[in-house]
């Protein structure tokens, strides 16, 4: 499968800053692409546009040639947010958070190191690193074709970061899920990605 961005422009308000201008990108589901740029260059905005949370002012996001908005029901492009504490419903026990996903397989839950005991708890009773494992599991549903990972490991210690990335890389390889990862850590991007894009160069790929 292929995720494409064609000539996309975006700004938050009519007179606001032009965050993306005529941006182009094409990612195959066999690829792992790293996005880098300093704060304020629109990395998270781009992630939201790619996964359908925002609509571009101009241009399109295409999945296999079809506009992303034409996919009904489950969105095959899933985003994992930087702050898991804002990405889970505080009133749902963690078991329900998993059920929000698309038939999450048992091996995903185990592979991410989610303890059975955590399923009974509520989001406020878990640490950021523990919550992030749930957000990742939720995004790895059966029909997921692309995973957008926006700074998913900044709150983790080094060993957990490595553990989770190793699992993710194996999983996306096995299921042919395309990965787009945002990180401030250049060494991490070099490790996990097959290709790098710097947003400062606005769409012209290196």
């Amino acid at each position, binding site marked *: 499968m292929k995720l494409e961005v064609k000539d996309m422009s975006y700004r938050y308000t009519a007179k606001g800053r032009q965050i993306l201008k005529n941006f182009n990108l094409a990612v195959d589901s066999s690829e792992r692409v790293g996005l880098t740029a*300093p*704060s304020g260059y629109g990395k998270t905005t781009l992630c939201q546009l790619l996964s359908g949370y925002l609509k571009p002012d101009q241009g399109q996001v295409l999945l296999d040639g079809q506009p992303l908005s034409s996919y009904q029901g489950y969105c095959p492009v899933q985003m994992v947010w*930087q*702050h898991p504490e804002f990405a889970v419903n505080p009133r749902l026990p963690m078991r329900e958070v998993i059920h929000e996903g698309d038939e999450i397989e048992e091996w995903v839950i185990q592979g991410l*190191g989610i*303890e059975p*005991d955590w399923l009974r708890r509520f989001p406020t009773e*878990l*640490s*950021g*690193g*523990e919550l992030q494992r749930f957000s990742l599991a939720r995004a790895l549903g059966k029909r997921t074709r692309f995973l957008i990972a926006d*700074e998913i490991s*900044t*709150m*983790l*210690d*080094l*060993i*957990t*970061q*490595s*553990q989770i*990335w*190793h699992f993710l890389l194996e999983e996306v390889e096995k299921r042919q899920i395309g990965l787009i990862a945002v990180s*401030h*850590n250049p*060494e*991490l991007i*070099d*490790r996990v990605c097959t290709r790098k894009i710097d947003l400062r160069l606005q769409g012209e790929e290196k």
Partner: protein
Amino acid sequence: MDEKRVKCGAGSEDRMDSPAVNKLSGEKEPVLKIEHMSISFTQYDRGMRQVSLPVIRDLDVEVHAGEMVAVVGSSGSGKSLLAHGVMGVLPYNAAMDGRITYCGEELTRERIEKLRGREIVLVPQSIAFLNPLMKIGPQICKGDKRASAREKLRSIFKRYELDERVGNLYPFELSGGMNRRVLISTALMEEPKLVIADEPTPGLDLAVAKRAMAHFRELADMGAGVLVITHDLELALEVADRIAVFYAGATVEEAPVQDFQDEDSLRHPYTKALWRAMPQHGFHYIEGAQPYVKDLPAGCSFAPRCPQCGPECAREIAYRAVRGGKVRCVRGK
């Protein structure tokens, strides 16, 4: 590049050596010395039954004047409690044990209440700790309206490249990075001898995080003892003099920052595992997770994940001095 310069600037040589000299001559006491600190919470289990959760079991750390020490541990390991314990602001259901000495004298409840906010300051984790309804200027001056306070405020603003107009603004009118500088400024109004910074760089991009850390480095270079609590080992390595590694409620190793250049100079298997997990050092990982406080193993808490674990690891492990650092492992050498 600025950060590096701050670290290697004038005085860094004798700073590196001073703790060792202090220990030998015994002249100068550490600013802060925490021995066998433990903090536990009482929680209701079922009905009226109470259980005690030992979140911190055995924490030892020392901070000398002019030195920056980082306590590094994974998120959710309860290391923020260390700061709250020293400042005496633990919640009502927490109990603390152990010995805290400040400048050679025990830091009692009465003493910390007098000293906090003056000689001992806490830079909290989140910019949400600023009062949203108070202008920045009065907030940093803590209501002091004297000319000397205003003068001091001006010099602090200059130091952190904040415009003087900022004093008349509210926290919501500033960017995240500026608010963070304001938080650090609140610590500077008095001349602190001990600064405790709790996770000062969450969610900041690398350049900004480095700059924030450099501000704390400056405080240390001015002569204060600085204790930074963080989960970001890579960042801590850039600025700190010594690193204390915290795992499952106890400090497992204390090492000078130079020892992190090479895996072999580290002492504890958990620290070595952290080192190997860095993307630039192979990105290796070990199985399992940090044990939950309710089901800690007897003896070494790292034993279930340790490649060199043996029968002797099931006993209580002493925290001992090894090669200018400390380690809580029977095999550490």
